[in-house]
């Protein structure tokens, strides 16, 4: 069959008839059946005890294979079918009878349920029972075993420059044999590659010299050398810290009504240092959760625990202190379980989890670990107890909110329906029963033991969750595309064996973050081109097979940092108190009715990297689109496309100033327009433009020159954009005309995009 036929076949919906569907793999309970049951049945027949109907539980093995109870009298057992699932015999299985029934009174789910089964799902359930009804646990809760790396021969004989990752990826491509996906995409050209690598690892574009050196270096080690150089740069830690700040709901103010400022930035700098010094991930976790409890804890280790004081603090008049305090404890459970374990424990705050095997009791046992902080729930001032003294690098004394427990632990009670003043049974600290128990833990373990349990080799989640998030940072999406949920309702990994292989490797390497990232970017998978044929796009629009490199818009922070760098304005000073760059007038005043005023910074403060921008929790920086508000923990990437983003990138003084400054640099770079325009284009994209592109830019430059020649006032405004020194009066028209063209370049899709 000819390739050209494929799109037509797809548009007419003939796909299934034209292409032989790939051989179906045998039914796998965890992969094929549990997701159906979880979505359609667990609501009434799952872990949530109060909502459970007919005393039937399908989320556990014993429940699935239990004797059938009488529908009218659940105390008695039915005579036929005798089991919910009878392996090998759908005819003797109540489940098959119910899901296949045509009778509205018998059929499950009942006809009025919002979620109904599809025919394919019913068939799949029947097939599973027929094939012997093998049961297996939810993948993410099973121990991590290192799977064998697929043999190169099985990978379709494609020669690839990479490592073990590629063999897993090739094996998947080979397994599906989808139309239009015969193998991986070719390697990206060197300029695209060095730009991608530099943006992914440092959040900044490469300099012209770095691009040139890489293009020129034809030795086989050139790429690895570039990787090592970038992983060793300070910008690396700044970039990776940024995503962690979102996860850790970092902000420079308390939030809520009063929203007073707080001094949290020394913790932010701790994160940058941790990434730059390649702190092993297990230490990174332990120090943030329980650094204060380590033997002879250093002030840095105590500082690390500010992680769990980053939550909003309520100072609303009339609110109950204890209610506020309990809200903070809930936040810590949520943040800790989401960021480190990929679990949506919050769902068990008010009732047993509806899908995952976590009871409300499990939740409050976790809650107990964070319930003894020596705090009182008051919050109308900035920093609140417990505080630690911290000397900033310039020797100044600061008070930082950190974790410190009271001498006597608070009693923890389960809260009925999650309501703060409805205590139920008393609980002690303990980890969820469905996960491996703590090894050799004391009777009532504390936060340090919890941190050790999270980073224990036997914990099935921590390494998978961490590797997945690192993968997400360089591949745009995780292998598990719900990074916040590794539970039963989360998505399964696109490459389960690869994830487990990487996770076990990560643990064995001593949780070496930079080594893991190096492995990712050294793979052929990473180095593929993102150019995508219509065929491949139609077949695999979400790029689940990884048969090409993803192509996606950079984050608002990276776009800003890039514009500052290209225009020569960036100040690469690391760390220190937050700064206040350009921000629209009146935004803070609006949210606070005039109480809070934005005092824009001057000089260097306008040009620092975006992670140093002051983060007001009630009014996040207005030009940081698609960024979490930092009200709560967030590990998911948001990527949308709205007109407000276009307005920011064309009208924010950040960008108009960058355009003017880049224009001045272009003018200084050469003596003729075409060379200057090509130079500027290359600054922004890391590649020289085609002649047609230069021609378009030159035509615009000429028309703007004429326009601004006639409109000197407008020229002056455009050329003098921002707070940088104004160009001399005789250069104004020229700078304004260039600024107009540079504005176009800075907004090119390929400049805003990681290709």
């Amino acid at each position, binding site marked *: 069959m000819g390739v050209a036929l494929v799109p037509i076949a797809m*548009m007419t919906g003939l*796909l299934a008839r034209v292409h032989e*569907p790939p051989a*179906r793999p045998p039914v796998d309970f965890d*992969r094929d059946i549990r997701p159906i049951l979880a979505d359609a049945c667990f609501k009434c027949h799952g872990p949530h005890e109060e909502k459970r109907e007919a005393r039937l539980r399908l989320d556990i093995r014993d429940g699935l294979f239990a004797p059938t109870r009488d529908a009218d009298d659940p105390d008695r057992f039915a005579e036929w079918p005798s089991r919910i699932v009878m392996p090998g015999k759908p005819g003797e299985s109540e489940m098959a009878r119910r899901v296949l029934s045509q009778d509205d009174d018998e059929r499950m789910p009942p006809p009025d349920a*919002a979620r109904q089964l599809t025919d*394919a799902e019913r068939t*799949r359930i029947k097939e599973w029972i027929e094939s012997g009804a093998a049961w297996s646990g939810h993948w993410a809760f099973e121990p991590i075993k290192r799977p064998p790396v697929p043999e190169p021969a099985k990978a379709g004989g494609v020669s690839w420059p990479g490592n073990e990752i590629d063999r897993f990826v090739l094996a998947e491509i080979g397994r599906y044999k*989808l139309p239009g996906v015969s193998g991986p995409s070719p390697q990206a050209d060197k300029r695209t590659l060095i730009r991608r690598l530099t943006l992914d690892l440092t959040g900044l574009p490469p300099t012209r010299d770095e691009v040139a050196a890489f293009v020129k270096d034809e030795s086989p080690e050139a790429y690895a050398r570039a990787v090592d150089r970038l992983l060793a740069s300070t910008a690396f830690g700044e970039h990776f810290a940024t995503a962690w700040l979102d996860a850790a709901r970092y902000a420079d103010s308390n939030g809520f*009504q009063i*929203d007073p400022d707080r001094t949290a930035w020394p913790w932010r700098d701790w994160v940058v240092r941790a990434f730059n010094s390649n702190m092993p991930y297990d230490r990174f976790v332990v120090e943030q959760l329980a650094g204060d409890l380590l033997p002879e804890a250093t002030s840095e280790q105590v500082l690390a625990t500010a992680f769990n004081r980053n939550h909003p603090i309520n100072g609303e008049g*009339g*609110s109950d202190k204890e209610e506020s305090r309990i809200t903070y404890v809930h936040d810590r459970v949520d943040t800790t379980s989401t960021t480190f374990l990929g679990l*949506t424990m919050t*769902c068990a705050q008010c009732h047993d989890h*509806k*899908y995952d095997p976590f009871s409300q009791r499990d939740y409050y046992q976790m809650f107990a670990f964070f319930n003894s902080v020596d705090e009182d729930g008051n919050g109308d001032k900035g920093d609140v107890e417990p505080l630690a003294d911290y000397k900033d690098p310039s020797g100044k004394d600061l008070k930082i909110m950190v974790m410190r427990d009271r001498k006597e632990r608070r009693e923890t009670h389960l809260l009925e329906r999650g309501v703060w003043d409805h205590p139920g049974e008393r609980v002690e600290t303990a980890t969820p029963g469905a996960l491996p128990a703590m090894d050799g833990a004391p009777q009532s373990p504390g936060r340090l033991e919890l941190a050790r349990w999270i980073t224990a080799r036997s914990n099935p989640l921590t390494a998978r969750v961490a590797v997945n998030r690192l993968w997400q940072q360089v591949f745009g999406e995780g292998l598990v595309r*719900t990074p*916040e*949920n590794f*539970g039963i*309702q989360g*998505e399964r990994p696109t490459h389960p064996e690869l994830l487990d292989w990487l996770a076990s490797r990560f643990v064995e390497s001593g949780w070496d973050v930079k080594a893991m990232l190096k492995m990712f970017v050294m793979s052929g998978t990473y180095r593929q081109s*993102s150019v*995508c044929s219509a065929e491949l*796009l*139609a*077949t*695999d*629009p979400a790029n689940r097979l990884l048969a090409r490199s993803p*192509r996606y818009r950079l984050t608002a922070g990276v776009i800003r940092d890039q514009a500052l760098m290209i225009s020569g304005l960036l100040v690469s000073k690391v760390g220190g108190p937050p700064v206040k760059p350009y921000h*629209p007038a009146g935004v803070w005043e609006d949210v606070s*009715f005039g109480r809070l005023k934005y005092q824009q910074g001057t000089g260097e403060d306008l040009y620092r990297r975006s992670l140093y921008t002051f983060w007001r929790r009630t009014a996040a920086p*207005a030009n940081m689109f698609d960024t979490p*508000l930092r009200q*709560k923990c967030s590990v998911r990437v948001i990527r*949308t*496309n*709205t*007109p*407000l*983003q*276009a*307005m*920011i990138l064309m*009208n924010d*003084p950040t960008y108009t100033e960058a355009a003017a400054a880049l224009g001045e640099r272009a003018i200084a770079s050469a003596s003729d327009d075409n060379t200057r325009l090509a130079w500027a284009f290359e600054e922004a994209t890391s590649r020289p433009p085609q002649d047609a592109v230069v021609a*378009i830019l030159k035509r615009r430059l000429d028309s*703007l020159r004429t*326009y601004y020649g006639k409109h000197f006032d*407008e020229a*002056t*405004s455009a*050329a003098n954009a921002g707070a940088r020194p104004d160009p001399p009066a005789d250069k104004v028209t020229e700078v304004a005309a260039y600024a*107009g063209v540079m*504005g*176009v370049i800075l*907004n090119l*899709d*390929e400049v805003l995009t990681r290709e």
Partner: protein
Amino acid sequence: MTRRQFLGRSAAGVGSAALAMLMASQGRAEPTELTMKDVAKLAPRAKRVIMLTQAGAPSQIDLLDYKPGLDARRGELIPDSIRMGQRVTTMTSGQAQKLLPSQFRFEQHGEHGAWVSELMPHTAKIVDELAIVRSMYTEQINHAPAMTFFQTGHQNPGRPSVGAWTVYGLGSENKDLPGFVVMVSKDVERTCDQPLYEHLWSAGFLPAEHQGVKLRAGHDPVLYLPNPEGVSREVRREQLDDLAQLNALHQGTTGDPEIQARIAQYELAFRMQMSVPDLASLKEEPDETFELYGPGSRRPGSYAANCIMARRMAERGVRFIQLYHVGWDQHKSLPEQLRIQCQHTDQASAALVTDLKRRGLLDDTLVVWGGEFGRSPVGQGDIDSPGYGRDHHPRCFSMWLAGGGVRRGIVHGETDEFGFNIVSGGVDNKGVHIHDLHATMLHLLGIDHEKFTYLYQGRRFRLTDVEGQVVRDLIV
């Protein structure tokens, strides 16, 4: 990627769906989202919503919930049998809980004699258009969680607002304006404010394009809207032409249809530079408009001016128009402050209903007036001085709805003689919870609130969580 984005990517639709099915059959389930076909199964009565949110909690006992029986009990302690353990805030938990009747005069208005306080003379004139609900309730007792609940169906920040859900479900009717617009007003004098947070109009976990766009008062209604100084509309047009041309050139190389989407958003931004100022310019409104909406309507950013804006947006097909007016938190000086609040809002709220009606827009525009909870029939502070106030009260409060399929001229639900507990109204006389209000609003828009879900973190979320019942008595 959501299914909507997933299927929305160019002509790849059918092939994508085919792959999704193929992969789903092999355990790689694509998250499925409802399409509009699934959502809009009910006949819609309303096409758009104007929500007049009165932030801070208007004192229903002084405005819409007439309780003459309290007069005889002035100063008595509220019986425990009535209070039934109801929380108060720490502002009044230490003081005696003395009953305090309203000092304002109530009269009956309209065809069926709805009681309305003298503080709302204009609302009184339109009661035949309204469904006054005296049986609202919520669980939250502090402003931030209660307002968050009122706007998003949950007390903690992070869920999508009712406006975001609405535009996510129904899309926009105007290609030059956002589908969900927010405006905040504050009066100038002496009342007490509660802050409003961006999360109240955020898209939560829904795609961010559904978030509310906040219009600010004055000549710069949307952040970053105007061109920078030195860039004329002519220059900008030329820049965008080049940008489109260069991006299209690059799309030829990369094959990524997202580039086309980016070009479209730059063009929409360009159109909004005209459509938003046009919307916000009240210059073309005749004097008669300003007379109708009352004093203050000529001042940009006032509640009255925002009500005129709301009508202009309704005319232009904006789907969800969200006004907030702050200052209703009368813990003290209630007699003076409440009068001021009403002077700033009563005429304009009534004028908006009248104006929509005479323009034929009321039939398919749902208007909702109310705050995040109510105020207590118990006084706060010295009830014998004009400095008295009232504490928060979540167990009953009043709202009104109009237009968009709402029954005209009714009062729904009653409270007990103390004005403390609900005795009737709502489904099975349980009162009308915020979830029930949301369910009813979605119903009027043609959306079944139980089926309108969004898969996030592996759970199908609803605006109404796992609760909410449509209050059919409120519907025509």
